[in-house]
């Protein structure tokens, strides 16, 4: 089920397209996050 408003956002660690390791926890206390899931690169809307 899709997570809901008020729930804790699960932490993640992923490589970015700039080859950097990015963790959600890096941003805690510092920035709000807009986490934008998209289905696949090159899929037109």
């Amino acid at each position, binding site marked *: 089920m899709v997570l809901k408003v*008020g729930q804790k956002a699960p*932490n993640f660690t992923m490589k970015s*397209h700039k080859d*950097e390791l*990015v963790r959600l926890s890096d941003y805690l206390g510092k920035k709000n996050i807009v*986490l*934008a899931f*998209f*289905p696949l690169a090159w899929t037109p809307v």
Partner: protein
Amino acid sequence: MLDQFEGMHTQVLGISVDSVPCLKAWADSLGGITYPLLSDFFPHGKVASDYGVLREEGKSERAIFVIDKQGIIRYVDVHDIDEQPSNDELFCVLAELEPEAAAAQQIATPPPQPEPTADVVLYCTQWCPSCRRARAYLKEHNIEYVEVDITRDREAAKRVRGWANGNETTPTFNINGKIIVDFRLDQVNQALGIK
């Protein structure tokens, strides 16, 4: 546009199940993407799955989560996979989290609206499929109603959270004072006097 996110102390992160080389190639084809595109490739779709947005076909929904500085989810938009979510609405939510920054940036958000006094009030978002069904249903039965967009009207979102156990469940109906959370047909029919 990205400057505006920065001004709201917000980092944009894109994420898909594509591999890093694929994301790189795509970003290059678009002339470069400054915000990080994260690869949810291995384990395949694990993060999408954690957030509840992994589709059967192995790719994710087109969805946006706004997460505050305490790591709490403050907004969720699971969009029609064939449509692009709107940024305007996102800024309404961010303005709620960062009112001073919004004022400094002169981000125009809709002014707070009083709670409607109509017989039938429908609390919705633009993107929620059940909301579309609710609108169609009311129209089919010639029921007049006032619609409130809870993405834009964050006071209204707060009311819905109060009714729906902290969730921003849509559609939520207020029919002559009776609150019905979610499109429960039997309850809606009863409240509207439809057999």
